[in-house]
């Protein structure tokens, strides 16, 4: 259903879209999900799409993207999906548990390995919201900050499906869980995937979300993932984006962690149109550790904005942030890192770094630390750098017979290396190393191919 973008305010278009489809939105959803909609659409209505006056969106104006018209799929024929029609992929290298989403909807023919540890649930957000209402009542929409970001509220209003992962107490899922979200549509298309992850005490899981676009039309993806990480647990989320230039991707991850838990988030933007990543980590107990990383590699007119909010709500927690960017052509990027140290959060350790490599004079980065420290016994540091490829290093490499192009690749990779090495799942790290190198060699320009299985482009789609 397409919506006409006439002379009305852009928000109104979405509010009426919501009102017209409220019934459809709830076909698949449970009450918990349905009941959150009204409040959320109200917030969206009050605040509107963030413009540049909203401090945290100062460098990313999404209004033009929302002004465009999109179709939506509120009545996905989920049981008739046929993945092989859209995608054929043989995951060879990566030892992973792989599941697919199509346009944000959980693919119902996903096959989970028999060897999945007992009690682990992996599946459709919509279905589990009905079959496990107690988990959803406890966790759903409890960590997402609808009030802080109207686009998160918008997702809550429109949420229907996505992935759900539950790891019970004491269980370790050894293999990484790979979630491949494939966007494919006939016309401009918008999706609101909503995901929930619950990691109970002493449990461990690592997930890898791979975002792809498989058709040549415009996409707007507004996704929200909430994760609850209980005591002594370990949780990693790697968000790998390889989407074509007509994509607007808004991805928000909200993590709430409990004592002695260790969380790692990593946003790897390898190709996109406009990307906004929000990472909120709430350390709600003592002795939490969180590592928040990002790597963005952009060229042409791509834009990547990373926003992080690390909330040191309790004493004795550790946070470490590292975002690295390589910008070529007229690519632009922004980084804002908010660190909140609440009054009783003594003995906080919080470190933040954002380093950028600008390959041309037209590439731009806006970087801004935002520290709010209300406790006195804390160790906090932040730093940002913007630099060019080092001429002396270039000459040194070339004087050994290495071509200019190859020397550039080596130096760009050397720059990105630190961020890549932060990946603490070896199989994923290996995979990403290769991908990042491919990006630097300009070999990842086949935007439609699946980066993780090396499916060869059929030349049907080109990179824009």
């Amino acid at each position, binding site marked *: 259903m397409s919506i006409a973008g006439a002379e009305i305010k852009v928000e109104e278009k979405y509010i009426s879209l919501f009102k017209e489809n409220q019934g459809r939105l709830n076909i698949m959803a449970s009450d918990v999900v349905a009941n959150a909609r009204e409040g959320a659409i109200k917030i969206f209505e009050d605040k509107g799409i963030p413009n540049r006056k909203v401090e945290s969106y100062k460098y990313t104006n999404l209004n033009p993207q929302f002004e465009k018209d999109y179709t939506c799929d509120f009545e996905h024929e989920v049981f008739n999906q046929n993945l092989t029609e859209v995608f054929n992929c043989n995951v060879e290298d990566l030892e992973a548990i792989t599941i697919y989403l199509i346009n944000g909807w959980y693919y119902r023919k996903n096959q989970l390995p028999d060897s999945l540890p007992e009690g682990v649930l992996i599946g459709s957000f919509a279905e589990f919201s009905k079959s496990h209402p107690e988990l959803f009542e406890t966790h759903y929409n409890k960590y997402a900050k609808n009030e802080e970001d109207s686009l998160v509220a918008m997702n809550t209003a429109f949420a229907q499906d996505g992935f759900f992962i539950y790891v019970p107490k004491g269980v370790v899922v050894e293999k990484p869980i790979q979630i491949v979200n494939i966007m494919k549509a006939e016309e401009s298309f918008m999706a609101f995937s909503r995901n929930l992850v619950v990691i109970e005490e002493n449990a461990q899981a690592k997930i890898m979300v791979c975002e792809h676009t498989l058709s040549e039309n415009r996409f707007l993806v507004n996704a929200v993932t909430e994760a609850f990480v209980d005591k002594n647990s370990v949780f990693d989320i790697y968000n790998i984006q390889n989407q074509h230039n007509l994509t607007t991707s808004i991805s928000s991850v909200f993590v709430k962690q409990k004592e002695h838990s260790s969380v790692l988030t990593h946003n790897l933007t390898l190709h996109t149109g406009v990307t906004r990543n929000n990472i909120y980590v709430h350390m709600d107990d003592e002795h939490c550790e969180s590592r928040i990383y990002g790597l963005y590699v952009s060229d042409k007119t791509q834009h990547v904005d990373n926003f992080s909010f690390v909330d040191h709500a309790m004493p004795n927690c550790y946070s470490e942030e590292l975002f690295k960017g390589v910008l070529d052509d007229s690519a632009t990027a922004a980084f804002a890192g908010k660190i909140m140290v609440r009054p009783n959060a003594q003995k906080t350790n919080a470190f933040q770094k954002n380093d950028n490599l600008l390959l041309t004079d037209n590439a731009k980065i806006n970087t801004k630390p935002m520290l709010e420290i209300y406790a006195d016994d804390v160790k906090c540091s932040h730093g940002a750098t913007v630099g060019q490829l*080092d*001429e*002396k*290093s270039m*000459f*040194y*490499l*070339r*004087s*050994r*017979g*290495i*071509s*200019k192009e*190859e*020397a550039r690749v*080596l*130096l760009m*990779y*050397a*720059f*990105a*290396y*630190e961020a890549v090495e932060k990946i603490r799942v070896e199989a994923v790290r290996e995979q990403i190393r290769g991908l990042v190198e491919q990006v630097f060699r300009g070999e990842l320009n086949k935007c439609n191919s699946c980066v993780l299985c090396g499916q060869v482009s059929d030349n049907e789609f080109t990179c824009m």
Partner: protein
Amino acid sequence: MLEVKNLHAKIDDKEILRGINLTVKPGEVHAIMGPNGSGKSTLSSVLAGSEVFDVSEGSATFYGKNLLDMPAEDRAREGLFYSFQYPVEIPGVSMVNFMRTAVNEHRKYNGEKPYTASEFLKLMREKKKLVEIDSNLTNRSVNEGFSGGEKKKNEIFQMAMLQPKVSILDETDSGLDIDALRIVANGVNKLKSENNATVVITHYQRLLDYIVPDFVHVLYKGRIVMSAGKELALELEEKGYDWIKKQFED
């Protein structure tokens, strides 16, 4: 093999090289000496292809080919090696990856197949022995955190890996203790043959006890103002540069 004629080079309109003439033939060892700031490193890096300086006049040919027309990487692949006075630290680029890329780009240029991983590692092992370089060093990033002496050894190791025809060693002896100096000099001597040549830039006679030059040149204010046999190095060691400076003041 290397023929430099009336070479002038400048940076920001400041002329640093003011008419260099130098001819190097296979099998020869040349020493270039001269006071600080006279242009020794500038000459080396201009020949190696640095784009920091503008060549405003003169020529340089290498086996008859116009060196100045080639990008730095082609000069290296043709067989010119420059051992840096100040080797650059490149964190994040591993020594192994760096050397494998360099060696294989040389091979590609010469129409040879790239080395397989095991062939390459074998070559590395062999050449590491030659300069007695610690294995730990080659497992690290290029020059990162290397001591002054380790950096210089690493230059000679790279030279051994690339087997150049003409090597310009820019103060490879500075910062080396006696043992390291001997190792480096032995390395250079082992690589010497009647088909290749070495240009050593140094301030000290002691290196020339090990690497005995056929010619000693004095570079002063961007010109080679004096050339003689190895005895000139001894004389300079003894008397310093003042007598030369006086003679060529302008």
